[in-house]
Structures are given as structure tokens and as C-alpha cells.
């Protein structure tokens, strides 16, 4: 089976900078670890806040937004699931622009998220939709073009958004 390559970490980083992101708030996710988080951790233009738990990150991003600073929360889909109450309250009900980049752990490369055999992957799109949160999917490098505009919309509307990373990010 032909494996479409995943997005490049350098493309995602460029999109974050184009969206005026200053802070990356992160708990490691294997889908984005080598291709994105390690390079981001060495990027002098971005400030990295390392987390113990993902729901902390929802609140940190909200506090930064209130202070006028743009950030993204980088985490795994299981971290999103663990943080649903914080996202519900702080992102959705309080209308804070919490921008989340979420790696889909163990998603099969040839399947859509909705077709995955992994319940935690299959659950993500309907869960995000029922919460009323905007989402985009990033499967290939071409899809990265959707990221900066989605972040811009989140800050303009003061609403949360999720970018689902559907394949392993390439360095």
C-alpha cells in the first residue's frame, strides 16, 4: 500500500509563526515528537512551556490570550480526551481562543479518523463537533496551509480550534 507522507514539521512551524504564535504549550505526542516538538524546542523564536498534564495547557493558553499573547497547545488525542472539561468550560463557554494541535495516536495511515479501528481516534471528530469546536485535519503537507487561517479565525472570533494531525509529522 502506498504511504502518503505526512506533513513536514518545518511547514507547521512556519504556519505557527505566520499566525503570530509566541508560545507553544506542550505535552509530548509521538505523532509530532520528532518532526515538530523537538525542532520547536530548539527554535529561539518560540517559547516552550512544558506541561505535566494537558488540561493545565488549556488554562495557560487562556491566560496568555487574556494577556494578549498567542499560543498553541500541542498534545495527543488522549490528552484532548482527558481535558474535555477544561476545553468545555474555558474554551467553549468562556470563549477563549485555545488553539490545539492534536496528534492522533496510532491512527492507521490508510484510514480516515472516522474509520480507525482505534476508539480513541474514531471518537475525536464527533466529539470535537458536538462540542462546537472548529476543527481542521492535517494529513499531508498541503493541508498545513489551513493552519494559520484557522488560528487567525480562532483569535478573531475568540473561540477554540483543533488541528488534528492525522499522520506522523516528518522532520
Amino acid at each position, binding site marked *: 500500500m502506498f504511504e502518503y507522507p505526512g506533513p513536514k514539521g518545518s511547514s507547521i512551524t512556519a504556519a505557527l509563526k505566520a499566525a503570530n504564535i509566541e*508560545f507553544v504549550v506542550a505535552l509530548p505526542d509521538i505523532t509530532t515528537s520528532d518532526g515538530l516538538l523537538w525542532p520547536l524546542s530548539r527554535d529561539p523564536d518560540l517559547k516552550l*512551556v512544558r506541561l505535566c498534564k494537558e488540561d*493545565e495547557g*488549556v*488554562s*495557560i493558553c487562556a*491566560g496568555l490570550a*487574556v494577556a494578549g499573547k498567542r499560543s498553541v497547545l500541542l498534545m495527543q488525542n488522549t490528552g484532548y480526551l482527558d481535558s474535555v472539561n477544561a476545553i468545555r468550560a*474555558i474554551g467553549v*463557554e468562556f470563549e477563549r481562543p485555545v488553539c490545539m494541535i492534536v496528534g492522533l495516536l496510532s491512527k492507521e495511515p490508510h484510514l480516515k479518523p472516522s474509520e480507525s479501528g482505534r476508539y480513541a481516534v474514531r471518537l475525536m471528530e464527533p466529539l470535537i463537533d458536538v462540542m462546537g469546536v472548529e476543527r481542521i485535519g492535517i494529513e499531508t503537507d498541503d493541508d498545513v496551509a489551513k493552519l494559520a487561517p484557522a488560528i487567525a479565525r480562532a483569535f478573531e472570533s475568540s473561540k477554540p480550534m483543533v488541528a488534528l494531525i492525522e499522520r506522523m509529522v516528518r522532520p
Partner: protein
Amino acid sequence: MMKRDEVLKVIHEHRGNAVVVAHFHTAFDMMRVASHPLNYYSVGAMGQASSHGLGLALGLPERKIIVVDGDGSLLMNLGTLVTIAEAAPPNLIHFVGENGVYETNGSHPLPGIGRTDFPAMARAAGFRKVYRIETIADLRTELPEILSQNEPVFCSLMMVEGEQSREDWLYINGPKHRAEFAQGLKAARAASNR
């Protein structure tokens, strides 16, 4: 043991232009005895006050950020101590009111009451400036030093509930408070730049 509303009055006297983050009954007490345009109640989920405080501290490095957390709330987000110590914002003060109960949920006792040592946890997480205060007199004495540190501070406050405050959940969770805080912060920043 100190009464919470008395503690909040003393902090209020010393806060200057700091942002104060509080949640639940602490927020209601602040509305009654320590009202200020830079009071931030939009915490949303139990345990998250210190994480909002960290975001505010990183985003507003020119301003002190004071978090008045609860012991039950801290237990729900213990990792925050490590995250704050790692990020090490020089302008964040993390107070924890120790009353030993989940007050908002019926005042049931916390697990570990009488055995849990929050200052020791903070030290073990990497805080170097750690305090434990039991009396209002000591709070008055120690506050100037606490507020003048240039690194994260953790301070346990041994307290009990004071006078009852009206519980205005709609306000602390609502858009009116968020708009008022945003306006207060905007005005405070403009005043700082003059």
C-alpha cells in the same frame, strides 16, 4: 487559623497593581471584601486557577500575578507545581488556602488531611521560596517580602471559612466579568505606560 475574608483583605491592601486569580468561594469573598478591576475569576474548571495564573504571568511579565488557590483545587492539579517551577515566572505568587475540605462540594474532608504537606510538595517540585502562614499578624509581616521576590513563590495559608458571601456563580462564570476584567487590564496597562 485565619479567616479567609480577613486574609483576602490583607492581600488586597498589599496587592498594588497585581492581578489576583481566585475561584469558587474565594472569588465570592473577594467580590465582597476585596473587589478590584484586576480580580480574575474566569477559571472555569476546578484546579485550574494556578494554570491561568501561569499563563497570565508569562503574558504579563511586567505585573505581579497572585493566585489564591484552594487545597482541594491544588490536589486536582498537583502537576501545576512542577510546571510553574519549570517555567519559573518571576512574577507569580501561588497562595494556597488550606481549609482541609472540598468546601464547594459540601465540605467533605480532603484525602490526606493532616498528613499532606503542601509546602514540602512545593519545595520538592522546585520552588525555592516557600512560606507557611498561620496568623494574620504573620501574614502582614511576611507579605512585603513575599511580593518582592523575583522568582515563583508558594505560600500555604492556614485558614477557615470567614463570613458567608453571596454565591454569584453567573457573574464569575459569565461574560460580564470577563469583559470587566479585560477593560480593567486595558486601563491598568494604559496607566502603566503613561
